[in-house]
């Protein structure tokens, strides 16, 4: 019995669904650390975009978009960066091509931009680099956002960037598109595999994280032509490894260190903390691997997966050949087909007392838990190179459509090589 308890989670089935409460529990870490921001679920009760009314996103659409993001990540890893130039006037004619896809972009933070400060909610994304927000005037189209669109002409700390600057030259690696010129000002363009895009001026502006953490002259995209999956939010905070990313630009203050916790429920906030303040002593580290030259992803080396205390029989080359990365914007973990097959088989065997039901979208292993008050599920742990063993939280195993359709939140890639 002791062994079973160690290797499994026993949870209330009712806790799998979002709380019906409209209250919001704030992260103590984000409330007490000076370089820390509250992380909220974009559609949750804690989101300032939601007016306290939790919404139920369309799960099938979220998973469809998640697959689009994964497809574009694979494409980005397998191709050299594009060097197309973009121009503001032609931007709506840009073909949709593989790039970093936003996907459902579930988690947001609020940062202050400009002087005086404008609080803007940005999707935070470790899978891309350029920070951008919608700007006035919209020369073509802007999508609806909750907060007022940033107006650079009303900020005393805003500067356009010259197209001869090094920063403009860095756009190729940060966005996949070289910058171009408009009256000597640098124009950026970033487009996504689902036809979302942002085009505008590369600019410098004051960023205010908290009252004590303020940065002048941060490069960002002031987008005057934006379309896509961003409805409600003001833009995106790029946390990748490229030199134009926010962590790289604030390296003198934070040494490219940041940490976060994604909340388990839409009625809680997590934190995004820059610098090493408050990092747990129990953190286990694994080296960042270079997954492909020229990309700014955070690469990981998966060594093994354990289900219910049992290591899955997966040859190490199954993981090492394609490599792996961590991404705050991808929803469902993707595994090489052989690894996913082993995980699914072991998980189903250990869940055999619960009835199975039909799959949804990319998720094919689902259970009907409607007849149960509690459920005992096997623990899942990932081992990474360097000896880090990461046991997933109980909320990190299932994706819940409804109590009668609770699915294993993993999917297989289509090909062992990707």
């Amino acid at each position, binding site marked *: 019995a002791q062994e079973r308890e160690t290797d499994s989670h026993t949870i209330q089935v009712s806790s799998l669904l979002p709380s019906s409460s409209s209250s919001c529990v704030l992260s103590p870490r984000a409330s007490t650390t000076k370089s820390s921001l509250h992380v909220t679920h974009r559609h949750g009760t804690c989101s300032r975009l939601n007016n306290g009314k939790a919404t139920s996103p369309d799960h099938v659409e979220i998973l469809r978009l998640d697959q689009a993001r*994964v497809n574009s*990540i694979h494409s980005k890893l397998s191709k050299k960066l594009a060097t197309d130039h973009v121009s503001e006037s032609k931007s709506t004619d840009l073909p949709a091509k593989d790039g970093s896809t936003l996907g459902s972009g579930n988690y947001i933070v609020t940062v202050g931009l400009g002087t005086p400060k404008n609080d803007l909610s940005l999707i935070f994304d470790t899978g891309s680099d350029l920070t951008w927000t919608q700007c006035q005037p919209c020369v073509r189209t802007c999508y609806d956002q909750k907060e007022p669109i940033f107006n650079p002409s009303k900020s005393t700390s805003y500067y356009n960037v010259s197209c001869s600057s090094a920063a403009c030259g860095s756009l190729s690696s940060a966005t996949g598109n070289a910058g171009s010129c408009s009256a000597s000002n640098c124009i950026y363009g970033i487009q996504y595999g689902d036809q979302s895009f942002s085009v505008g001026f590369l600019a410098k502006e004051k960023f205010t994280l908290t009252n004590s953490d303020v940065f002048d002259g941060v490069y960002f995209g002031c987008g005057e032509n934006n379309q896509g999956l961003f409805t409600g939010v003001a833009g995106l905070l790029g946390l990748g490894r490229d030199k134009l990313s926010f962590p790289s630009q604030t390296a003198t203050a934070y040494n490219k260190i940041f*940490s976060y916790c994604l909340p388990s429920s839409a009625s809680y906030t997590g934190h995004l903390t820059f610098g090493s303040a408050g990092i747990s002593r129990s953190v286990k580290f*694994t*080296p960042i691997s270079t997954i492909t030259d020229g990309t700014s992803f955070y690469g990981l080396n998966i060594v093994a997966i354990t289900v219910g205390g049992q290591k899955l029989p997966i040859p190490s080359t199954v993981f090492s050949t394609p490599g792996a990365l961590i*991404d705050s914007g991808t929803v469902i973990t993707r595994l090489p087909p052989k690894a996913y097959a082993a995980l699914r088989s072991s998980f189903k065997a250990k869940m055999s007392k619960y009835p199975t039901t039909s799959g949804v979208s990319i998720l094919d292993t689902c259970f009907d838990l409607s007849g149960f008050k509690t459920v005992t599920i096997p623990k899942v742990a990932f081992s990474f190179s360097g000896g880090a063993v990461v046991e997933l939280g109980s909320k990190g*195993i299932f994706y819940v459509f409804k109590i009668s359709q609770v699915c294993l939140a993993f999917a297989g890639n289509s090909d062992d090589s990707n």
Partner: protein
Amino acid sequence: AAIFGNVQQQTLEVVYDGAGGRVGFAPNGCS
């Protein structure tokens, strides 16, 4: 590539140390 997604990251403390070239994990990061 395999991708470690955000459902699996929930409640973990995830630490990115770009200068040190490492990523770290700890349990109960939101509490």
